[in-house]
């Protein structure tokens, strides 16, 4: 026992006395362990633990995906009226719910707060199994008059006050009474919701009265329909699709819309709630797990080589122990005990860093992972950390003594320490290094493809420049006014256009250039419009864009053919079209020939437009954010006007910032039915939109760098070991006239097969692994041979340097000095 106690004490001393062994172990193992623990905690929360807020048993998400245009699917259940219809078909057997999440600004207790807003239908929280903390349930008679808030908002803004009488919050310019408090709804993976928050506000529409109004004939993204009941009673996907045909035939009264909807392919979906909620995160968790475990293995292989080198130098000590009666098992036990303090420290560091990483997760993962607030280290993580380090320690203890030959103790006991003893053939070290290089290749290949993809996505050419432009908007808070303006439609000089003119004039006082267009070119607010092709009758999808004088010049949108639009009135309405549209419409003719041609977008005379110019295609958002492939058509008189908000674009001089206060001052008193001034800069919007992509890119690039560093440390460690063991031989060669370059060649040649084998196997493994990833993720970028070869050449160069530098340090010394040191 004393031997073990002494070994443990020696292990503690060694942390300080042998920093070249203890520091790499504690830091490398601790940090990689932290990464593994974080991924395990994420996976555990996402895949195995019960959802923290809702009851997921017998709960399903249903959906009806419509292929609206190429690459763009929309949800037919985006209108809750349609959910009410399918609910009616299935009667009381099933409970249905519907939520449209969005971001909103409210005022509560005089404080402006950004919240997640749930536009929902009565009974939805109850269907989810969300606990009612206080107040009334959502199926009361006057449900549409008030709002419900989340527990977090209740705790932070109302100090958990259970008396909700007289408590109101201001939403969309109206004070609404707070009727109740629900638990935070966290198990929600909302598409397009930038900041999913636990500060939540619910509004409900009465489910039973929705069928009393006609269908809005609108399609949206980001809604969620769920249903609870026994699986046997659930509608099948075929039944959902059959319901769709009935609904369109019976409930859609506008013939054009009916024809359009029936011409589209729809796909019914019914998914277990958790699976739908986790989505791609499950696969992401597996990929992360693979990457982190690979890193841990790489780090362990490095450390193992270091340990083998360290314990090789102590061969004689072990031989003495064996000579004095120690069994091998006991020796391994002593090595295990001796290393225990270092491994315990590494696991403590790992746990601390993992906890810190958990805190950082919301920043690191952004919207890519759900339930971020619920991912924490728990007892399982601690047990796992300790088990992993004890296991690694045990493996190290076994392998580190592999060169102690119990059958040839005299070799160890009588070795002079000069040259490389026969038993130290380094086969294991080199095999480990080949394995490490192979893993490095796989990780670097994946990382390089991912980084390139993220870079291309974030920094793609959008077709326009980024001046110091701001999108300024106000919300219409009077539903009746909005309705009356909608009825006026496209009448020139109508009230809406007058309000708009007033808005633009007031903004012009800001000493800036104002463009009378509704959105910036960089926008997620994309309208699509379909019209029947007069020749074929097929539906043609376009993206209508508002034009204004100076728009093309301000955003450097390239005019490819024809001329720009002018504010002058013409007999026919003039338009600019995007090149993609010109190519599509020109058919076999040159796309430039579309200039001067007419486009018919409907039956009326005013649906005929004259193409005066062709401009370069523009992309509303960087790739991957929004898949819209419809080509742009620029209209002088907008055919589609967004009646929900009044907006314009303000271009400020470089260096000047436009604030909300400035705009509020400029538009003060414009109309009491307009509220909620919002100002968003183009550059800030780009930053926000690409934030996650860029962050992913930096993280993956960091991972790649870490892989490269680990591989370099491993190879240079091995090279150092080889050079050190061969220093006697090298010194003798030097003393007998060998040139340094020859000796360097000798060292490199010794490691070259390892490098070639590792990289060769690595490339094969990388190709196979990436093929597997492609099967796993349909959205993964294609394999990039050029990138893979580049990164592997880089790896090879780093490895050659890692071999050469430590060797050079040995052979650059005076040979007699080396010989004297031995």
């Amino acid at each position: 026992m004393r031997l073990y106690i002494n070994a443990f004490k020696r292990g503690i001393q060694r942390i300080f006395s042998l920093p070249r062994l203890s520091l790499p172990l504690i830091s490398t193992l601790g940090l990689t362990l932290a990464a593994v623990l974080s991924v395990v905690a994420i996976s555990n929360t996402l895949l195995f633990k019960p959802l923290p807020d809702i009851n997921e048993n017998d709960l399903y998400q249903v959906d009806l995906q419509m292929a609206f245009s190429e690459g763009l699917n929309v949800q037919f259940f985006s209108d809750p009226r349609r959910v009410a219809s399918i609910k009616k078909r299935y009667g009381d057997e099933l409970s249905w719910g519907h939520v449209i999440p969005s971001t909103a600004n409210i005022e509560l207790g005089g404080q402006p707060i950004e919240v997640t807003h749930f536009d929902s239908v009565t009974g939805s929280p109850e269907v989810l199994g969300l606990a009612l903390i206080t107040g009334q349930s959502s199926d009361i008679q006057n449900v549409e008059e008030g709002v419900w808030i989340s527990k977090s908002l209740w705790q932070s803004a109302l100090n958990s006050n259970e008396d909700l009488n007289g408590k109101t919050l201001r939403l969309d310019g109206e004070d609404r009474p707070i009727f109740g408090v629900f638990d935070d709804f966290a198990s929600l993976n909302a598409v397009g919701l930038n900041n999913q928050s636990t500060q939540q506000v619910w509004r409900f529409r009465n489910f039973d009265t929705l069928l009393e109004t006609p269908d809005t004939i609108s399609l949206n993204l980001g809604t969620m329909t769920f249903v609870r009941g026994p699986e046997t009673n659930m509608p099948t996907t075929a039944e959902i699709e059959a319901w769709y045909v009935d609904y369109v035939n019976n409930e859609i009264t506008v013939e054009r819309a009916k024809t359009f909807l029936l011409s589209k392919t729809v796909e019914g979906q019914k998914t277990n709630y958790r699976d739908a909620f986790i989505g791609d995160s499950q696969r992401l968790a597996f990929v992360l797990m693979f990457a982190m475990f690979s890193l841990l293995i790489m780090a362990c292989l490095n450390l193992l080589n270091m340990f083998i080198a360290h314990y090789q130098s102590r061969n004689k000590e072990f031989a003495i122990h064996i000579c004095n009666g120690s069994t091998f098992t006991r020796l391994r036990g002593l090595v295990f005990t001796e290393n225990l303090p270092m491994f315990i420290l590494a696991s403590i560091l790992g746990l601390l860093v993992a906890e810190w990483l958990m805190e950082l997760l919301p920043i690191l993962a952004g919207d890519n992972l759900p339930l971020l607030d619920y991912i924490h280290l728990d007892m399982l993580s601690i047990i796992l950390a300790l088990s992993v380090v004890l296991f690694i320690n045990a493996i190290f203890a076994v392998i580190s003594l592999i060169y102690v030959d119990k059958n040839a103790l005299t070799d160890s006991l009588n070795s002079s320490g000069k040259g490389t003893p026969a038993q130290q053939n380094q086969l294991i070290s080199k095999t480990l290094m080949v394995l490490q290089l192979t893993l490095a290749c796989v990780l670097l290949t994946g990382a390089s493809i991912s980084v390139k993809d993220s870079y291309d996505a974030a920094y793609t050419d959008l077709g326009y420049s980024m001046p110091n432009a701001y999108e300024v908007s106000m919300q219409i808070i009077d539903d009746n006014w909005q309705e009356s303006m909608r009825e006026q439609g496209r009448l020139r000089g109508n009230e809406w256009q007058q309000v708009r003119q007033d808005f633009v004039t007031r903004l012009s006082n800001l000493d800036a250039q104002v463009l009378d267009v509704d959105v910036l070119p960089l926008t997620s607010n994309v309208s699509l419009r379909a019209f029947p092709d007069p020749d074929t009758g097929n539906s043609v999808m376009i993206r209508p864009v508002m034009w204004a004088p100076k728009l093309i010049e301000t955003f450097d949108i390239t005019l490819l053919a024809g001329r720009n639009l002018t504010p002058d009135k013409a007999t026919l309405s003039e338009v600019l079209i995007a090149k993609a549209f010109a190519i599509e419409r020109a058919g076999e003719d040159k796309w430039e020939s579309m200039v001067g041609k007419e486009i018919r977008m409907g039956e009326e005379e005013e649906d005929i437009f004259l193409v005066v110019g062709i401009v370069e295609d523009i992309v509303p958002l960087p790739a991957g954010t929004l898949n819209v492939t419809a080509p742009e058509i620029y209209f002088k008189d907008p055919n589609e006007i967004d009646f929900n908000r009044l907006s314009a674009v303000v271009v400020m001089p470089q260096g000047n910032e436009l604030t909300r206060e400035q705009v509020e001052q400029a538009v003060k008193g414009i109309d009491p039915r307009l509220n909620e001034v919002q100002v968003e800069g183009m550059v800030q919007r780009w930053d926000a939109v690409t934030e996650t992509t860029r962050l992913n890119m930096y993280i993956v690039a960091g991972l790649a760098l870490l892989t490269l560093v680990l591989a370099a440390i491993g190879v240079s460690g091995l090279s150092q070991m080889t050079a050190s063991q061969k220093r006697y031989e090298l010194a003798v060669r030097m003393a007998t006239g060998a040139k340094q370059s020859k000796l360097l060649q000798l060292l490199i040649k010794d490691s070259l097969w390892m490098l070639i084998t590792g990289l060769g196997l690595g490339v094969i493994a990388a190709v196979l692994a990436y093929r597997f990833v492609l099967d796993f993720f349909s959205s993964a970028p294609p394999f990039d041979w050029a990138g893979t070869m580049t990164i592997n050449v880089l790896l090879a160069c780093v490895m050659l340097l890692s071999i050469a530098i430590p060797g050079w340090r040995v052979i650059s010394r005076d040979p007699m000095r080396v010989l004297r040191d031995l």
Partner: protein
Amino acid sequence: MSKNIVVSMQNIHKKYLGTEIETHALQGISLRIYEGEFVAITGPSGCGKSTLLTIMGLLDSASEGSYHISGIDTSSLKVDHRTQVRNQHIGYVFQSFNLIDSMTVYENVALPLEHRGENAQVIKSAVTDALEKVGMQHRAQYKPNQISGGQQQRVAIARALVGNPDLILVDEPTGNLDTQNGDAVMKLLMTLNKQGSTIVMVTHDSRYSGLAHRQIQLLDGKVVGKKQLQTSPEVPSKNKDVA
């Protein structure tokens, strides 16, 4: 007067197989060593002295032949069992001392007993005794690199005898020492032998081999001569406290 046989070797061969050459280091060695004897194995460099000693000390195994120590047939023993026999029955003194630098003198000497699993009291008493015998008790807390070569060899001898072995094997004990320290170590070995220890010593120094009771001369892996140098001492009853 009866003599207990401690070592019995019959037709021991040792071959080293290289890629091209086979070296026949020992060729049919047969010998017996009795309890209480002090035997010197001599011969020129490369004659197989040290190989014979390592086989005797179970640090290596013979290619052919049988070897019994204290009545135990070692040919069928597995590695850990050989270790156990070595721990219980053999003390080994190396030419280069082979002390562990990171341990104190006391810890180095205690090593065989620690590996035997003795309790702390027994270890303390035995180590103190052994260090007293070699005159090194005052250096018990020193590290090996803090004492001289002669002192290190004495510590190595203390470690060899602390477990009360049947046989102490000594490989060129004076090879790394100056004459003064060499003489002192030989004196110590003779004293230990007089106190009852059976000692087999490999040496090529005729001054010291002449101090043994018996000399076995090797040449090219064969015994070429046996010389009884003194009347074999009357075998004393072994004093367990001493050995």
